[in-house]
C-alpha cells in the first residue's frame, strides 16, 4: 500500500466527521491513530442521495458483526452492494446500535450539548447539502457489542491498536461519511475520543476481483421503476386525489388444494406437526411444506436475501 498513490488523506479530529467522495473502484481506509476509537459510518449513492447504506438489510445478510468479506447494502427497493469490506485488521464492527444522538446525552447524562454521532454525521454531510433528517443508522466500525441473555444489545470496551484499519472498496460511486464517535462517557471508545485517519487510494486488479459476485435482479429497483419518482420537496403530507392503489399481487386469493394422505402419512403429520396448529391439519401441513422447502432449497437463513447464485 505504501507505494500506491494516495488520492485523498484526512485526519478526523475528535468531535468531527468528513464526507468523502469515493468513486467506484477506489478504497477508503479508515485507520486508528491511537487505537480504541469507534467510528460511525454511512454512505450515499453519490448520484442519488436517496440510496443509502441500510444497516437493517446489511444485518440480515451478514449478521450483527460484519467484517472482512462482507458488503454494505443499500435500503430496499435498491438493495445493491455499495461497499465491500476488503480488509479489517481488528475484526469487530457493529450494526445493532443506531448512531448516538443529542437526546441520549441530554436524557441520560444531562448535557445541554454533547458530541454525538447523529449531529456529527449531519454536520459532515451538510457540506453536500444534506439535512439532519438525511442521517441514517450507522455501521459502527471498531465497535464491540454483544447480545445479553435477556436479548439486549450491550457495548463492551475495545482494544484496537494504532494502525488497525478497515478498507472499504466502493462498488459504486458513493459519498462516504465516517465520523469519530462522540461517546466519551460510554465504554464504546474506552472513555476517550481519539483522531482517526482517512485515506483514499485506487484498488489493484486483485482487489477489484476480490468481492464475490452479487445478483443483478429485477427487484433491485431505482427511480426509473418507481410509480412516483419525484422527491417530495415540501414537508406537509397531503392526500393525492388521483391515487389508485397498485399493491403487488393483490388481491391475494387462496385456493384449496386437496392432498390425499394415507393413514401412515396422516400419523406422520400428526406426529411432527407443531402444537400451534391444534386440530388444523391443513395449516400444519402447509407449514411443513414451506418449512421443508426452506430446508431443502433456501440458500440464506432467517429471511435474509441470498447473495450467491440463484
Amino acid at each position, binding site marked *: 500500500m505504501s507505494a500506491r498513490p494516495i488520492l485523498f488523506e484526512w485526519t478526523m479530529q475528535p468531535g468531527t466527521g468528513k464526507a468523502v467522495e469515493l468513486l467506484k473502484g477506489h478504497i477508503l481506509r479508515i485507520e486508528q491513530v491511537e487505537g480504541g476509537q469507534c467510528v460511525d459510518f454511512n454512505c450515499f449513492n453519490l448520484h442519488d442521495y436517496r440510496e443509502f447504506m441500510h444497516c437493517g438489510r446489511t444485518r440480515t445478510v451478514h449478521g450483527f458483526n460484519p467484517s472482512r468479506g462482507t458488503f454494505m447494502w443499500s435500503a430496499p427497493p435498491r438493495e445493491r452492494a455499495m461497499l465491500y469490506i476488503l480488509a479489517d485488521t481488528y475484526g469487530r464492527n457493529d450494526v445493532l446500535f443506531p448512531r448516538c444522538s443529542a437526546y441520549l446525552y441530554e436524557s441520560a447524562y444531562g448535557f445541554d450539548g454533547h458530541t454525538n454521532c447523529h449531529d456529527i454525521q449531519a454536520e459532515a454531510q451538510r457540506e453536500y447539502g444534506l439535512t439532519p433528517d438525511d442521517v441514517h443508522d450507522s455501521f459502527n466500525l471498531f465497535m464491540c457489542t454483544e447480545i445479553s441473555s435477556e436479548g439486549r444489545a450491550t457495548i463492551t470496551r475495545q482494544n484496537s491498536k494504532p494502525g488497525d484499519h478497515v478498507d472499504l472498496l466502493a462498488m459504486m460511486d458513493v459519498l462516504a461519511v465516517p465520523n469519530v464517535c462522540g461517546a466519551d462517557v460510554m465504554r464504546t471508545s474506552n472513555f476517550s475520543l481519539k483522531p482517526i485517519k482517512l485515506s483514499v487510494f485506487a484498488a489493484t486488479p486483485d482487489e477489484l476481483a476480490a468481492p464475490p459476485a452479487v445478483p443483478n435482479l429485477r427487484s433491485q429497483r431505482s427511480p426509473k421503476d418507481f410509480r412516483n419518482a419525484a422527491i417530495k420537496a415540501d414537508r406537509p403530507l397531503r392526500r393525492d386525489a388521483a391515487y389508485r392503489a397498485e399493491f403487488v*399481487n393483490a388481491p*391475494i*386469493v*387462496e*385456493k*384449496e*388444494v*386437496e*392432498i*390425499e*394422505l*394415507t*393413514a*401412515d*402419512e*396422516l400419523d*406422520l*403429520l400428526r*406426529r*411432527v406437526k407443531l402444537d400451534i396448529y391444534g386440530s388444523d*391439519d*391443513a*395449516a400444519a*401441513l*402447509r407449514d*411443513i*411444506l*414451506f*418449512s*421443508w*422447502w426452506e*430446508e*431443502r*432449497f433456501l440458500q440464506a437463513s432467517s429471511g435474509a436475501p441470498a447473495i450467491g447464485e440463484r
Partner: protein
Amino acid sequence: MGEKIVVKLRLNQQQLELVDRTVAKGIAPDRAALVRLALREYGAARPAPADKKGRS
C-alpha cells in the same frame, strides 16, 4: 389399499407459484406428490422419540 384421508391445503397464488416452480424442476410429478414428499422428508429429519433413542 388402506384408507386415505383428504387434507385441503389453502394456498394463495404466490405459494402455488413456488409449488409449481418446484414441481417444474422435477422434484415431484405434481402438487400433491410434492406435498407428500415434503411431509416424508420433513418427518424423516425429525425422528420420533423412540427412534431417537434407538439411534443414540
